C-alpha cells in the first residue's frame, strides 16, 4: 500500500517514459506546470467524474496546469481554478 502511494506522488515522468506507445491515451496526470491541453473524455463516467465536469472541467475545455504539489494538480479552465489529485487526473484523457 505504502509503496503504491509513494509512486503516485512522483511526477509522472517515469510513467510516460515507460509507456510511450503511439496508441496510448495521454491523461491530465502527465502534464507538467505550464502545459496546455484540451480535455477529450473521461475514461470512467463515475459520480466523481460527473462532479468534476460540473465544476467546469468538461470535454473540449482548454486547461492550463498552474502548479503541482505532491499528489495535487492545480489547473485553470475558463475562469476557474480546480485542484484535483493525480488518481482523478489519470481518469481524464487529454490531447
Amino acid at each position, binding site marked *: *500500500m505504502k509503496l503504491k*502511494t509513494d509512486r503516485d506522488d512522483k511526477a509522472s515522468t517515469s510513467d510516460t517514459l515507460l509507456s510511450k506507445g503511439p496508441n496510448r491515451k495521454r491523461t491530465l496526470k502527465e502534464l507538467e506546470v505550464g502545459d496546455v491541453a484540451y480535455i477529450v473524455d473521461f475514461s470512467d*463516467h463515475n*459520480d*466523481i467524474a*460527473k*462532479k*468534476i*465536469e*460540473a*465544476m*467546469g472541467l*468538461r470535454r473540449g475545455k482548454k486547461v492550463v496546469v*498552474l*502548479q503541482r*504539489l*505532491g*499528489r*495535487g494538480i*492545480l489547473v*485553470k479552465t*475558463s*475562469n*476557474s*481554478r*480546480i*485542484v*484535483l*489529485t493525480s*488518481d*482523478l487526473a489519470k481518469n481524464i484523457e487529454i490531447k
Partner: protein
Amino acid sequence: MKKSIKVAFAGNPNVGKTTLLNHLAGTNLSVGNWPGVTVEKREGFLSYKDYDIHFIDLPGIYTLEPLSEDEWIARNFLIEEDPDVIVNVIETTNADRDFLLTTELLEFGKPMVLAFNMSDEASRRGIEVDAVHTVELLDIPAVKTNGRNGEGVDELLDSIISASDRNHPPKPVVYGERVENALRAIEAGKGNGRIDKHALLELLSGNDAGIEQKVDLEKFYRNKIGNIISDERYAYANGLHQEILRKKKMSSRDVTDKLDKVLLHPIFGFLIFLAVMFLLFKISFDFSTPLMTWTQNLITGFLGPLAASALTSLGAGKWVLGFFSQAIVGGVGFVVTFVPLIATIYLVLAYLEMSGYMPRIAFLMDRFMHKLGLHGKGIIPLLLGFGCNVPAVMATRTLESKKDKLLVMTMIPFMSCPARLVVFSFFAIMFFPHPAVVIFALYLLGIIIGLITAFFLRKTAFRGKLSHFVMELPPYRVPRTKTVLKIVWVQVKNFLARAGTVIFAASVVVWVLLNTPPGLKNQSDSAAAYIGRAITPVLEPIGIKDWRISTSLIPAFLAREIVLSSMGTIYSAEVPQTGKEIEFWPALKSQIEGLGSAIEESVVSLFSPTITSLQADSENQNLVSVIRSSFTPASALSFMIFLLLYTSCLATVAVMAREAGNKFAIGFLGYSLVIAWVVAFAVYHIGSII
C-alpha cells in the same frame, strides 16, 4: 394582511450568494438546521412593502444531480418545500460553468430570477450580460448585482416580488428530439396533470415508469442514460452562454494567478503559510489583550460598583448584594471580559476564509497531510476548529469519504477554540513569565494529540487507501470590512447570549449550591464543596486538589468558559467586599480615557515583531490573587491541559452525535477524557519534579 413569499437562493459555491443575502436580509439573517439533516441552513426574513419575504440559502452546489449530501438537500428542498421564486446567483465571470445549474433549475418550471453577480469583476474582464435578450430567451428577469457594494440589490428585490406576483414559469427547456419524445411518452403514461421536466428526467433515468424509453435511448446513443441527459444539459447550458454573454477582447491582468505563483510555490508558499499562521496568532493576542484589560476594568471597577451602589440605595439587603457581586459580576462579568479576544479571533478567521486563502492551505498542506493518512482538504475543518469546534464538525461533510470524515472529526475537538483560550490566557498570565509561549505550546499539544489520534485510527479502525479529492480555488478577493464585521458581530452576539443564558444559569446554580444550606458560616461546608470533594479523588493525581476547582469543572461540561465563571462565583465570595464608593462622572471619564489608550496600545503592539502582550500585569486584582493560591505552576499547567484535551463542551459532543452517531460521540468523549487525564498526569508529575 401581508403576502408571504418563499425565496430559494441557489448557486455554485463561492459565487457570493450569502453576501447578497446579507444585503437583502441585513441583520435578520439566522442560522438553523435543515430538517432531518445537520447541515447549517442560513435563512433571512424581510418585511418589504406589502410582503413578508422568507429567504433560504441553499447549499452551494455545481449540479442538482444528487452526488453528495449538499445536492440532495438542494434537490429535496426544491421538490418538497415548493418555493415561490428561485433566485439563481451566477458568478458572471464563470457563467459557462454556472449555467449547468441554471439549466437544471429551469427544468423545475418555477418562477425564477437570474442574479448575475460580481458585475464589477465581469466588466473589468470585458464580459457583458445581455439582460434584455435573457428575458426574450427565457421569459425571466436577469439582474446585474454586485455583492461587494450592494449594487443591484434593490432591483433584485423588485424582480423577486414581481416574479412572485406574476407567478409565471420560465420558457420550457427543450432538449434533443429523441429525449423530448421519450419525456412526452412518460408524461402521457402517467396520465393526470403536468409533471415538471426535472421529475420527468428522474423518471427517465430510473427503472420504473421510464424504463422502456430509457432502454430505447441507451440503445440508440450507445451510452448510459445519465451521460445522455448530461450531454443534453451541457448543450443547453452552452447555448445559454453563447446567447446571453458577450466578451470584448481585453487584456486582463490576473492578480490571482500572480499571487498564486508565490503563495502556492512549493517552498515560499509553505514559508508564507507559517508566517501567516504566526501573524494570526499574534494579532489575536496583541490586539485583544489591552482591550480585555479595559473591559475587565469597566466591569469590576465601574459598572459593578455603580450597580452595587444603586442597589444599596434602593435598600437591597446583604443577600442581594452578595448574589450580585458573586454570581453576576464574579461569574457572568468575568466571562464577558473576554469578548475582545473572541471578536478578534473571529475577525482573523473571517479574513482568512473570505480572502480565498483557506482552500489554498488545503492544497499546500496535502503534501504533508497525506503522508500521515490525512486529506489536505481535511485541514479546512481543522482550521475552522480554532474558531469553534461545532461548525468545524459540520464542515467535515465536504469530505467525500466517510472514513476521512470520521477521522477529521476525531481531530477537531483537539483544536483549541476561543473558549479554551479564555481559560488559558487567564491561567498562563497568572503563573508563567512568558504566557504566549505556554499558550502556543498548548495549541501545539492539541494539534499533536489530534495527529497522533488520527494516525492510530488510520492504522486500525479506519484502514484503507486515502481517497482522492477535488476542490475549487476561488480567486483572491479583498473582504469587505462591513461584511466581516457583520460576521464577527453575529458570533459576539452568540457569545453574549450564552453569557446571558447558560453561563448565567450555571453561575446561579453554583452560587445557590455555595450558599446551601442557608445561614452557612464556612463555605467549605456548603453543598458545592461537598460535590467538589466527591470528585476530587479522580482529579487529585493530576494536581487538582481544591474542591473549588473540581466543583467549577462540573458545570464547565456545558461550555469550557463556564469554568471561569464558576470559579469567579466561588472565589469572589472570599474576596473582601471593599464597598468603595465611586463618583460617577470622574469614573466615566477615566473609563473613556482608558478605552482610548487601550485601542492605541492594541494597534501599536501589532507592529512589534514578536508577541508582546500577555505580560503578567494583573497582579493586584483580588480575585486573581485568591485563585492563584489554589494552584502551583505545575498544577495550573496540568489543569489547562486537562481542559484542552477533554471535550468539555456539550455542543461539540451533541453535533458529533448527530453527524456520526451517539456511540461515536460518547466513545470519543470517553477517549478524550482518558487522554486528557493521562497527559495532564504526566505533565503534572514531570512539572512538579522540575
